[in-house]
């Protein structure tokens, strides 16, 4: 029997092996934003509650790098990251918040309970800004440089180990 008869079987086995290997690899569910490196699109959001300032794309163009935190009072991981945002603020980070699909009273309740690290909080009821900057969930945190260009994206809640990374990215955006 010719060895060539075995070639299709080996080719098939190699294909099955490749597929089995790929299927058992952990899947990365994070959708990275394609807007990193791009300027923030124009937007102008009203305040998310009484007594805070709303958020405009112009808020970011004053030469000072900032964190842009996409969050919501109904989001559980946002409670988990609240202490880390507090610690970032204490270490000098300026943090701008955008509340997604949220009510002013819920926003106020959340901040009363978990602290308010924000200089501005915008209200995005239609996820418009979220979609415009390529964020696919809450919470997400972007580093915006002083010219309003998106420099870095952190997906998911901020853990203690992410704090120095974000401070470093802010420094790099200076």
């Amino acid at each position, binding site marked *: 029997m010719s060895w060539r008869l075995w070639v299709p079987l080996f080719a098939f086995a190699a294909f099955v092996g490749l597929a089995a290997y790929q299927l058992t690899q952990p899947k990365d*569910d994070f*959708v*990275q*934003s*394609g*807007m990193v490196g791009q300027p923030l699109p124009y937007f102008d959001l009203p305040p998310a509650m009484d007594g805070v300032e709303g958020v405009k794309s112009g808020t970011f163009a004053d030469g000072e790098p900032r964190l842009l935190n996409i969050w*919501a*009072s*109904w*989001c*559980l991981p946002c409670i988990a990251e609240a202490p880390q945002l507090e610690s970032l603020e204490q270490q000098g980070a300026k943090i701008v918040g955008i509340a997604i*699909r*949220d*009510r002013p009273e*819920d926003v106020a309740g959340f901040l009363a309970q978990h602290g308010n690290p924000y200089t501005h909080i915008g209200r995005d*009821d*239609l*996820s*418009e800004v*979220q*979609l*415009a*900057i*390529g964020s*696919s*969930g809450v919470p997400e945190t972007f580093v915006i440089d002083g010219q309003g260009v998106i420099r870095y994206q952190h997906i998911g809640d901020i853990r203690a180990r992410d704090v120095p990374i974000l401070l470093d990215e802010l420094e790099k955006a200076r």
Partner: protein
Amino acid sequence: MTRPALAAFCLAFAMPLAAQQTMPPAPFAYRQLEDPAQEAAAQELMETLRCLKCQSQSIADSDAPMAGDMRHQVRIRVAAGESPDEIRSWLIQRYGDYVSYKPAVSATTWPLFAIPLLLIAVAGAILLRRFRKRA
């Protein structure tokens, strides 16, 4: 975990989701456009865009609030005269090819289109040789 504890655990996670749903949906999340041709174009596009929250559904199929907000974006953009292709590339620019279910030939996907053609060509060549031998 005991059953009551499990129930309490599930409830703790269900509450914020319930709160997320208490906000009214975006105006055009569930409302069709007046113009049937525009609505048809929007619908066709929505069926080929991936919901980012529930990653195996299209935004037309999903009831996730974020999918509703994406449908709103698609409809108002179609109503404003943007073409479906422009809206698709607007989203691809932000979320990558991943957001689109419509296959496109690109630097990474060309083998998917080329390999079947190659296999057909190889099969054709083998058959041709065999028939020639017989004849």
